[in-house]
């Protein structure tokens, strides 16, 4: 090959950069179209999942309304860990508010945010707590999800059922290792600590804003 035909360093650089650019464009297009294609189905199953989760936190006997319809948007609220607007579901029984379901985030899980639903009855008692999304270590920290909890008869997350600040003081509202009253499995303390703290803060906030939250219906 004659010397003049040898690609120069600059020419090579431009050529490789161009090829890399084309690859990026091509694969980003694949990603974007895949996202657009799957987004409706993913959202639909997420909504279905949401309703299923709410049913687990809130006993059926406590409400007779369509919770997904009677949901209100809350502005970003630091007390429940939400830096984005979130939803609050108002449960009513024969027209009377009976409970609210909050979307709560524990920002300090072992690997990122733990999202959960916290149902608070109108008398200030927790009706139930369920983890909806988390990235905790499988087999170690994931027992906060009752599906992964080995203890099927009394899963870890059911400790919250029926609790209120009247029954358990704020000081005891921590895992046993930190001097509180909540159990935690050995080897994974960060995860339950984050959940316990987030539920405590959310319950405290719900109590402080009880009137507004329950009056939200009309």
């Amino acid at each position: 090959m004659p010397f003049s035909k040898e690609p120069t360093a600059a020419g090579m650089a431009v050529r490789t950069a161009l090829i890399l650019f084309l690859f990026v464009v091509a694969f980003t297009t694949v990603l974007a179209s895949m996202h657009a294609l799957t987004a409706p189905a993913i959202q639909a199953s997420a909504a279905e999942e949401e309703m299923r989760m709410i049913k687990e936190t809130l006993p059926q006997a406590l409400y007779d309304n369509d919770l997904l319809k009677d949901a209100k948007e809350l502005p970003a609220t630091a007390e429940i860990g939400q830096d984005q607007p979130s939803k609050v579901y108002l449960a009513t029984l024969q027209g009377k508010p009976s409970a609210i379901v909050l979307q709560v985030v524990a920002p300090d899980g072992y690997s990122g945010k733990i999202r959960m639903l916290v149902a608070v009855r109108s008398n200030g008692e927790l009706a139930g707590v369920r983890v909806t999304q988390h990235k905790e270590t499988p087999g170690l920290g994931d027992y906060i999800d009752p599906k992964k909890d080995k203890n099927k008869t009394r899963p870890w997350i059911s400790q919250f059922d029926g609790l209120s600040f009247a029954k358990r003081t704020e000081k005891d509202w921590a895992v046993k290792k930190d001097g509180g009253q909540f159990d935690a499995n050995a080897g994974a303390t960060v995860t339950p600590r984050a959940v316990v703290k987030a539920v405590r803060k959310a319950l405290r906030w719900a109590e402080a804003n009880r009137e507004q939250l329950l009056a939200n219906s009309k």
Partner: protein
Amino acid sequence: MITWAELKTIFQNSNWNQNPCIVQILGLCPLLAVSTNLINGVMLALATIIVMSLSGFVVSLLRHLIPYEIRIPVFILIAATLVTVVDLSINAFMHEMYLILGIFIPLIVTNCIVLARIEAYAAKQKPLHSLFDGAFMGMGLLWTLGLLGGLRELIGGGTLFSGIESIVPTWTALQILPADYPGFMLAILPPGAFILLGCMIAAKNWLDARAAAQAKLPPPEPVATAGCH
């Protein structure tokens, strides 16, 4: 096309001679974090099979278009895109399966076994060969991860197949050791995973050495391995 003999070689390489878990020691980070029980280990391996065969096939198809100098960023781009595509499609079209496999798929992006096989195999071989290489490497991972997860679960908690009820609702975990077995936390924690993995590698090298001795051959050099996370 691909012949039976070639397929057999790839199979043997993936499952024994070049086993990603106990010979290449690749992708330890998700591997050790997830293999706390048998079901988790098997699930991660299944997700890896899907991603590795797909990424091997696609890279091999495009291998003549990728300049050598920028192959690594392009490989990463392809692998990350495919993992996301698999993640999204399973979520959208096979939601039941997503609930089980979902948390394992994003872990594979960080698993360098995918990149390693692309670089070592798919970048040089034909698409179909690369597809099988990816699938069989995933299978090699399947039995080793299953074994490691099973051992950890058995020693750590005395059970096997815990978590199976999320796949087949009517089945439950097997209690192998007596129900009052106190559990051995070390096996569940990452150090236990390293110790057991070390034992498995030792067992593999011992089996190889014994086979070589029986065949009156000089024992094979233990394969130099360069692990990565």
